[in-house]
């Protein structure tokens, strides 16, 4: 089938089976290879993108369901400059091997931009909240501490604007 999808703000059309995964269409058809495949089972969060503004696992979305909808991938987070979350991940050292990083950046950007973390509270409660919200993004390298630091730092920066 022929589909119209808005990807990172630009209208795109693709011709493919409605059963194709959004993940594969992004990587193979649209050459947006920033989105990674980890498990293919919705467990690891590496393939997280925004679909109509919600963070979702793109390995679990049939492309037929995306006709007429909008998708934001890690390539679409930076607008002129890097997103606050991307800068904070760099500054805090919140990335190592990098496979989980695009998914974490997208999910964390959603968390920060939607105000899901109370940035005024940089303490234990806010850190626990970040851990709960990022629980669907597995990282085998960092031990998460520096990722949580980065999300808190980005939330503070966005709240201060």
């Amino acid at each position, binding site marked *: 089938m022929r589909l119209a999808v808005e990807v990172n703000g630009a209208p795109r059309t693709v011709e493919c089976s*409605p059963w194709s995964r959004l993940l594969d269409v992004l990587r193979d058809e649209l050459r947006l290879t920033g989105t990674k495949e980890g498990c293919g089972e919705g467990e690891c969060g590496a393939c997280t993108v925004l679909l109509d503004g919600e963070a979702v*696992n793109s390995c679990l*979305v*049939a492309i037929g369901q995306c006709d007429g909808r909008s998708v934001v991938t890690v390539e679409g987070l930076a607008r002129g400059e890097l997103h606050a979350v991307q800068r904070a991940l760099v500054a805090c050292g919140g990335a190592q091997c990098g496979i989980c990083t695009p998914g974490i950046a997208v999910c964390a950007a959603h968390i920060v931009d939607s105000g899901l973390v109370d940035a005024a509270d940089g303490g234990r409660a806010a850190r626990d909240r970040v851990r*709960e919200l*990022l629980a669907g993004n597995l990282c085998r390298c960092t031990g998460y501490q520096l990722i949580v630091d980065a999300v808190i730092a980005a939330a503070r920066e966005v709240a201060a604007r």
Partner: protein
Amino acid sequence: MTEPGYLRPRELDEALAARAAHPDWMVLAGGTDLMVNANHRPVPAGILDLWRLPATCFVRVADDAIAIGAGTTWHDVLRHPAIRDRLAPLAAAAREIGALQIQARATLGGNVATSSPVGDSLPVLLALDAELEVASVRGHRRVPYHAWCTGYRTTQLAGDELIVCAHVPVPGPATRTAWRKVGTRRAQSISKVMGAAAIALDGDVVVSARVALGAIADRPIRVAAVEAAVRGQRLGDAAEAARAAVRAAIQPIDDVRSTAAYRRDVAENLVARFFSVA
């Protein structure tokens, strides 16, 4: 290979007609179960896409019951003030289903249709004595949730039917409700044991109770022996009666995620805690 068909109805009548016309098509909402390892699964003959079908995306609040559309996501459940207030165990379960990305897509109707023995919301629907409303071109009917599951991942849903909503009675003010899951990790991991209860109290005496367990049998189950054992008992005493009744009543499954012995111990502790003093 021929491409699967695809339909995205926007009205319930249209969806029911499509279901009747294409009984072999996959009914897809959030896809969090049906799309797992999609590239290694048989390609469906067609996809009937019910994601955000308006007739199934609602929460209707009345004094005695809350109707929750089948297309309501766990994210929607979690942030709905009336559900959080009055159906607390359902909101608690929603918070521990998958994680943010899963909660944004997974629906109540999907949980009920897939009918996995480890579906996290299902013991809650049993404990709250929910009723499902299903529809087909032949009309609407209601099914008490306790009669819904007919076996391992099988339900009463007929081949031409779709799930419209769950009608969930609101527990009275003197009813204690609870939900608890035990697994390797709160998020994402599949539960080893989960339980839910609705306990009607007169002071500290149990008037009646509904107790449900998940991940224990081939389907989510009510534990009638516990419900009988606790009736008329004071909290605390009821906890010990419930513990003994669980031990005698259940034959937990033994699988990769846990052993029968561990599940039995945990189920006992979990149910006993539901009936403990404060």
